[in-house]
């Protein structure tokens, strides 16, 4: 365990920030949650979210603790291409914009991404899709909890178990009381704080060091970081892009937002959120690149961001990083709790197990599911499982779902067999590539295999899907 003298902040300061912000999120969650009078309100914020809140929630959800902590590691290891590689994850949001318009057109009263796959491809593809998406969502959720606990411990010396428990507790409580209203409302404030924090820390580091000095230092000490032809960095650029497409296109976190926003707002909000997200990993990555010019000896790459920020800005820098990290964690954990519980209630509870379709009972089940998810996440986090590895392993799984989703949305000839084979074979070959070639090829290969199978099945198919089968069912 870290002690106060080796951490950037005193544990008491860490606890004070945690309690202040935690109480703030819970208070705001309860306040906004009063709007959730119906199950639709609780689950989808009344399906009437406007441009500002829609854009902010899409952006904030996509800014995870990885974005602000792992982007600097990418920059430190793979240089300029590394930080741009991380930014390409924003293309997922940009390209989801037209998809969200199509989703609202085809399935206006839908609830989850699972609804669409079930109605479009049938039971087998639906079950397979649910397995992929639940494995991915749990890995993402647990990796956030674990990263949160470790980051708070590194930054302030708060013991891992206490910090992780506090973060999960705060997120579970306000999601429980306010549903998607609370998630979207707090996401707006969190996205503004994250953007201000990143700009402030990045600009101050820039003024302190000067870009010329940083460039010259890299040129002398680590020339590979500015090498335009670094093979691993170039591969990771495309791999990250496809991992991002897979994550956004299939996951209910994004589908639930598409259903929650007003019909005309959804595509514009996703597009603007992608634009707003793009500079964040670059700004965060630049902080890491400055380490060498500042003469900072980086022992653990995972802490390079806070290390540089605190060495340039002192305690203020460490406090800023702490707040940005806490906001990044909360904005993703709350969204995952809400969207994954929606998926479990709607797809598993209601459609698979036949739970009663009445408002009160569904809302009760939904709240119990959020608590159960929080508890399961806590148990897995408490065991300190290396879920980041599983999150990266899920890259080829989610990448295999890109083309079944796109094909299902746009092509009448897309069919169940093609979607199932694309997901199964794409995932298997992607996983083999992960172990045999390297993580930076897995999503790329999985997406390519899945695309080939999907396109071949569309070419050979005589399927003439009637779109009304989706829209008339109303989810």
């Amino acid at each position, binding site marked *: 365990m870290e002690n106060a003298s080796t951490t950037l902040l005193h544990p008491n300061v860490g606890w004070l920030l945690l309690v202040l912000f935690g109480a703030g999120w819970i208070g705001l969650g309860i306040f906004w949650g009063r709007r959730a009078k119906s199950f639709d309100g609780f689950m989808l*914020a009344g399906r009437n979210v406007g441009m500002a809140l829609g854009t902010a929630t899409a952006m904030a959800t996509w800014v995870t603790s990885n974005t602000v902590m792992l982007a600097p590691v990418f920059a430190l290891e793979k240089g300029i291409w590394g930080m741009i590689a991380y930014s390409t994850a924003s293309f997922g949001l940009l390209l989801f914009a037209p998809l969200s318009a199509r989703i609202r057109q085809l399935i206006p009263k839908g609830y989850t991404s699972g609804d669409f796959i079930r109605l479009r491809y049938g039971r087998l593809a639906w079950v397979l899709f649910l397995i992929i998406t639940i494995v991915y969502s749990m890995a993402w959720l647990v990796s956030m909890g674990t990263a949160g606990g470790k980051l708070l411990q590194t930054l302030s010396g708060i013991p891992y178990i206490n910090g992780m428990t506090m973060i999960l507790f705060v997120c579970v409580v306000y999601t429980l009381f306010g549903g998607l209203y609370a998630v979207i409302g707090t996401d707006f404030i969190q996205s503004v704080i994250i953007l201000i924090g990143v700009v402030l820390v990045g600009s101050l580091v820039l003024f302190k060091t000067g870009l010329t000095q940083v460039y010259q230092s890299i040129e002398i000490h680590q020339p590979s970081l500015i090498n335009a032809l670094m093979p691993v960095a170039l591969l990771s650029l495309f791999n990250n892009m496809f991992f991002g497409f897979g994550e956004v296109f299939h996951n209910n976190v994004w589908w639930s937002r598409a259903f929650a926003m007003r019909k005309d707002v959804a595509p514009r909000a996703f597009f603007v959120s992608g634009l707003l997200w793009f*500079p964040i990993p670059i700004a965060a990555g630049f902080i890491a690149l400055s380490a060498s010019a500042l003469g900072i000896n980086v022992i653990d790459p995972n802490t390079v961001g806070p290390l540089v920020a605190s060495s340039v800005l002192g305690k203020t820098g460490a406090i800023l990083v702490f707040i940005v990290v806490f906001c990044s964690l909360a904005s993703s954990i709350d969204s995952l709790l809400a969207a994954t519980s929606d998926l479990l209630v709607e797809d598993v509870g209601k459609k698979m197990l036949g739970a009663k379709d009445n408002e009160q009972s569904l809302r009760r089940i939904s709240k119990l599911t959020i608590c159960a998810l929080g508890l399961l996440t806590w148990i897995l986090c408490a065991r300190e499982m290396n879920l980041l590895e599983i999150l990266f392993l899920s890259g080829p799984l989610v990448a295999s779902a890109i083309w079944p989703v796109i094909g299902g949305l746009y092509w009448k000839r897309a069919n169940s067999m093609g979607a199932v084979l694309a997901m199964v074979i794409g995932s298997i070959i992607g996983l083999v590539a992960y172990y045999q070639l390297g993580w930076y090829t897995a999503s790329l290969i999985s997406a390519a295999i899945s695309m080939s199978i999907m396109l071949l099945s569309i070419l050979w198919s005589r399927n003439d899907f009637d779109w009304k089968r989706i829209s008339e069912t109303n989810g």
Partner: protein
Amino acid sequence: MHLAIPSVIVFLIVYGALIGAGVGVIVLLAMLWKDWKKGRLW
């Protein structure tokens, strides 16, 4: 093989990102103001 990314490109990327993120804050707040005035937040 080594081909260094020119410093001017690195300048454009880093300054562009910082300015872009700063503009992002203004855009978000402006959209919030517009939606709030029209009563179309939720």
